[in-house]
């Protein structure tokens, strides 16, 4: 019994971190049709900046705010100065993001060195708690909480705010949005910034247990890709459920069938690609 509780909580905590990264990726693709290869780079940059601030001030909150702000600035700059120029030319946009991956990764390597590091946890959550006869790190519970809070926040944003409605409309039918007189470029900048913010928060949240090191940008991107393909592109609901699915399946897969561990990630994605390429909750293309 304890085994199942622990594994479920493990899986959930991993899912929540995945959700943070995947949500931004799916929004950016859903609205702007950009495959942001640099999405993992937001995670990387945010974790490194957060680490530095954390070491200097010992305040997790301050580090989170600073790293998020930094990543949002980078994201907005990327969109408004570069990607925007190739509006509706996705190929160039993707290649641009590839260039940014190289730039950000190498800058981080230059500044922070190649040594893998783990962010220290916020001081309130460094211990472990007992669940029945088993020990579970309290930080992971925090991750689950943060993930749920943000998921709810995003849902409110999407369903209940005007901006959210605009984004929903844009994901569904961009032409209509363009015709409606709303400044579509501002919407794009906003969403790209939001996506970067979410990935940045993901970096701070994931930093203590995944760590930060050269290459984590690529692994996060791959995970986001798997979640988005399974859950459906452009759908926040899909990103949430996809993250839950991937996190739990991956976790239980490793626990019950360790020999198959990577298959548990890729097999569902392959199946979805074969049956319904745009994912479970994605819109049917044209």
């Amino acid at each position, binding site marked *: 019994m304890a085994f199942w509780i622990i594994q479920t909580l493990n899986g959930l905590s991993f899912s929540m971190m995945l959700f943070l990264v995947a949500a931004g990726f799916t929004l950016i693709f859903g609205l702007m049709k950009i495959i942001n290869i640099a999405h993992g780079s937001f995670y990387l940059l945010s974790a490194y900046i957060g680490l530095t601030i954390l070491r200097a001030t010992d305040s997790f909150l301050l580090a989170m705010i600073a790293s998020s702000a930094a990543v949002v600035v980078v994201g907005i700059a990327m969109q408004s100065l570069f990607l925007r120029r190739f509006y509706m030319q996705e190929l160039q946009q993707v*290649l641009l993001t590839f260039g940014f991956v190289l730039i950000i990764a190498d800058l981080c390597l230059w500044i922070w060195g190649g040594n893998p590091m783990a962010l220290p946890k916020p001081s309130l959550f460094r211990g472990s708690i007992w669940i029945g006869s088993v020990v579970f790190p309290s930080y992971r519970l925090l991750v689950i909480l943060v993930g749920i809070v943000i998921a709810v926040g995003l849902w409110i944003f999407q369903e209940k705010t005007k901006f959210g409605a605009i984004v929903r409309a844009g994901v569904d039918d961009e032409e209509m949005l363009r015709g409606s007189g709303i400044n579509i470029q501002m919407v794009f900048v906003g969403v790209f910034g939001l996506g970067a913010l979410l990935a940045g928060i993901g970096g701070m949240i994931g930093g203590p247990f995944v760590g930060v090191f050269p290459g984590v940008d690529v692994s996060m991107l791959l995970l986001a890709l798997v979640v988005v*393909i399974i859950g459906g592109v452009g759908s926040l609901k899909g990103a949430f459920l996809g993250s839950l699915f991937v996190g739990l399946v991956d976790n239980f897969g490793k626990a019950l069938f360790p020999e198959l561990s990577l298959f548990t990630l890729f097999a569902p994605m392959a199946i979805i690609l074969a049956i319904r390429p745009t994912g479970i909750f994605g819109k049917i293309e044209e």
Partner: protein
Amino acid sequence: MKIAEIIKGRYFLPSLVAVLIIFLPFLFSSYYVGLAIQIFIMAIFAMSLDILVGHTGLPSMGHAAYYGVAGYATGFLCLAGIKNFWFVIVLGMGLGGLGAAFFGLLALRTRGPYFMLITLALSQVLWGIAFKWRSVTKGDDGLPGIGRPIIGLGIDLKPDFHFYYFTVIIFLIVLVSLFILVNSPFGYTLRGIRESESRMKALGYHVWLYKYVGFIFAGIYAGISGVLWVYYSGFVNPSYFSVDLSVKALLMLILGGAGSLFGPSIGAGIVVLLENLVSGFTERWSLVLGVVYVTVIMLFSEGIFSVFKRGKN
């Protein structure tokens, strides 16, 4: 004067290049020959992608899939003792084509950015299999120790010198065959589809079938480059399926010019030389490359890519 005229002449540069290519191993050491081999193999890969990108207007982001499949096949065959090049290359082409046939069915249900995402995801599935299936692929360690194949006629391909000429010949065969393909009615149809799918449909063309066949051709040619690269480097591992490689091929097309005969090859040359040149200069070569790519795309994006503008159709 006369010399200036010659230099400005249409045939000067191509002749210079041809001479350089023919006499390269006599002029330079095996390091440069190795670079040249890389350029030619990558040129084949880029040309194969160009069928999709430049001619059909399908921006595939997972082209490394077919390259990798043929590459692993080569590795397995070699380790099983099969050294006959002709057998392996046919199998490599077949598997590249088969992979494309299978993935094409899945990917061609989508278009534009969705197509890009799906092709990317498909190549990553293969990466995941190659990485995890250690019992077969040895995972990240890969399959080392793959020797040069036997092509018959008593020619030994082990020296890079010989392998270079062999690669050039294969390159030329690919170049000529592709030239025939893109200038055939089939090629014209592909370009028509690139310009406007709806118009082609209205004219009665079975658009999906043309795209599908083009996809398979692209896979076949990619397979050729995969086989050659394994024989050149002696090694195959999951990086053959990497996003890096697929994206680099796209960059070669942007740099060299998609949809043209020599564009992909020039792009391949630029990318390979750039990578090797810059890394000799600075430890920050990755940063420099990133800046160069961003700059080039911002400044020199070719007109051909306007066909990827959504809403044009």
